[in-house]
């Protein structure tokens, strides 16, 4: 899993690339938390465009980021969610809680 971050103003964009499963979750969480600690953003955007596979381990990663942003008084947005990951988020009812760029 490749995790790239770019911060502007008070928004942090984290771009994920690869397969987000249990095997990759730990390093993804570590990289994400490090970036959040450094930027303390008002808004976190998770870009899923490069995620070729995701299962429930990815849901836990997103929920963790969501709780963290809520604690910071900020917000979380998902963007470029591919169909496979979208079906997993749908099954977990995630989209009712976290906005996406998806229409």
């Amino acid at each position, binding site marked *: 899993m490749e995790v790239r971050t770019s911060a502007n103003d008070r928004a942090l964009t984290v771009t994920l690339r690869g*397969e987000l*499963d*249990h*095997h990759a*979750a730990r390093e993804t969480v570590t990289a994400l938390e490090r970036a959040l600690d450094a930027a303390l953003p008002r808004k976190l955007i998770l870009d899923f465009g490069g995620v070729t*596979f995701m*299962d*429930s*381990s990815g*849901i*836990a990663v997103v*929920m*963790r980021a969501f709780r963290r942003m809520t604690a910071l008084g900020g917000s979380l947005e998902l963007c470029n969610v591919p*169909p*496979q990951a979208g*079906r*997993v988020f749908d*099954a*977990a009812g995630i989209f009712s809680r976290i906005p996406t760029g998806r229409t």
Partner: protein
Amino acid sequence: MKVRPNNYIAVEFMSRSANEGFARTAVAAFAAQLDPTLDELGDIRTAVSEAVTNAIVHAYPDSLGKISLRASVFDGNVLEIVVRDWGRGIENVEKAREPLYTTGGEDRSGMGFTIMESFMDSLCVRSRLGKGTVVTMKRRIAQRAGRK
């Protein structure tokens, strides 16, 4: 009476997380003979990943153990996937299958069984405490017009 499959594969692997990708790729490659759509293939990969991850994370929490994976094709384009472990087992299967139920803390979301259930046509979980767990899932792959 036991119905014989038209084809099957069986693999056995150690409960290392690096094998999660191997397991779903192996089943996806085997399932290709049923000519699934990309969405169907995605559902199958996801369901396999959930079952195998459960065996790695929950069946053998502080040790390494054996996991077996079997994928079979039956008449009517039905794919059956069986994931078996010899780990700690599940005390209350009905409860474990409820959405959001987890013993895994904040690394887990408690959605694995819910995802397997919604992505596959059927899910059967048999478990005995201290003996292990067998997860059996089935999915019929639609035969589409214009395909051979």
